[in-house]
């Protein structure tokens, strides 16, 4: 791998990425012609990113949204999946398992179905118990597009959705970039 590549696994997080280009609001942004340091998207295949499975419990590293249902807490691990915590005793919560869901940010549950985003897809998962899941439905491209941009500011190569799903960013020398994030 190029020794300048730094992989950032950015979530399409609740923070709206106010970026330009093709510009909505680029007043005052100077887009240089020629070379400039910036970020380039790393694309993954849909097959890579659509695999969802349950795993043993793992530590929280970058918690995001939380959802409470009955005795369980569902805690998002940004862009990675959902921790299932048994909170029957709130003085001693137990980290029970982890649903590995690439690109996950949000969830909501009804009955024993949990609805999650798996990048741009909406997936309904039957949670039979904290160790057993069943994917019951997938709606492709159902998650509203948030205007993909890196969390870090600066110039970046505009995302081309036809190339796949953005799974990270690498720092490169761009030529005449058309996108910028404040």
């Amino acid at each position, binding site marked *: 791998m190029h020794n300048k590549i730094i992989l950032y696994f950015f979530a*399409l997080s*609740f*923070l*709206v*990425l*106010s970026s330009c280009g093709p510009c*909505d609001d680029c007043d005052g942004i100077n887009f240089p012609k020629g070379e400039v340091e910036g970020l380039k998207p790393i694309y993954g295949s849909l097959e890579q990113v659509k695999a969802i499975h349950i795993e043993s419990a793992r*530590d*929280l*590293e*970058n*918690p*995001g*949204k*939380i*959802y*409470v*249902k*009955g005795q369980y*807490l*569902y*805690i998002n691990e940004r862009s990675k999946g959902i921790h299932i*915590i048994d*909170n029957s005793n*709130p*003085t*001693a*919560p137990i*980290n029970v398992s982890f649903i590995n869901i690439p690109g996950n*940010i*949000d*969830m*909501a*549950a*009804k*009955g024993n*179905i949990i*609805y999650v*985003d798996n990048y741009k897809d*909406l997936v*309904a998962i*039957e949670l039979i118990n904290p160790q057993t899941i069943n994917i*019951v*439905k997938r*709606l492709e491209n*159902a*998650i*509203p*597009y*948030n*205007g993909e941009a890196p969390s870090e*500011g600066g110039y970046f190569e505009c995302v081309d959705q036809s190339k796949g799903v953005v799974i990270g960013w690498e720092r490169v020398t761009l030529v005449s970039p058309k996108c910028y994030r*404040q």
Partner: protein
Amino acid sequence: MLASCASDSSNDVGLPQQNSGVGGSLARFTIANNSLYIVGGEDLHLYDISNPSNPRKKTKQRLGFGIETVFPYNDALFVGSQNGMYIFDISDPTKLKQLAIYSHITSCDPVVVQGDRAFVTLRDGVDCRFGSNLLDVIDISDLSNPKLLKSYPMQNPHGLSIDGDDLFVCEGRFGMKQFDATNPDALTEKRLFEDFFGYDVITLGKNLIVIGKDGLYQYDYSDSDNVKFLSKIDVN
């Protein structure tokens, strides 16, 4: 209504007949009755989940730039965006009927609702453009005509939650503030929790959960004057 045990101080999370749970004020997904609402980008989407294992797309509405959060309350849905808060009538589960937009200076803004008051935090910063740091209390007794009642200055406000007379507002790097909301038009600060970076908070009737950068904190707030620490789930 159950996205927050707002005016219901029972220990039950969710009403049995609805059987859904509770999310925080920063949620992009929420369930109300037999519908799943999803916001993001410029849109609000509505899915029919009367058959929970078969979500079906019903409708979508384009709202505007920076649609970020969603909060249901009774037959209304409150959507937070960078430019303002949208209010919808969701009494018809297959339709979205926009009632009003409460506009504000461009900033990030989660919203929670209790009774006829909406509580919105507005925050500035890199991702939130040029907003100010405020807690706005809005009169929504007429949903079609939301009116700002009062703005309280804040430091770094993020998610929030209200249950009866207790309002908790995360203040990011400054922790979390507990307010006495007996009179929402004259909030008084009761306590500042300083030990964590507070992103979001969910009240659950007796206990609350704070999502922080370094961990998930749980407190018992059944005695407002003596909120007690229960546990922490560490973040590595």
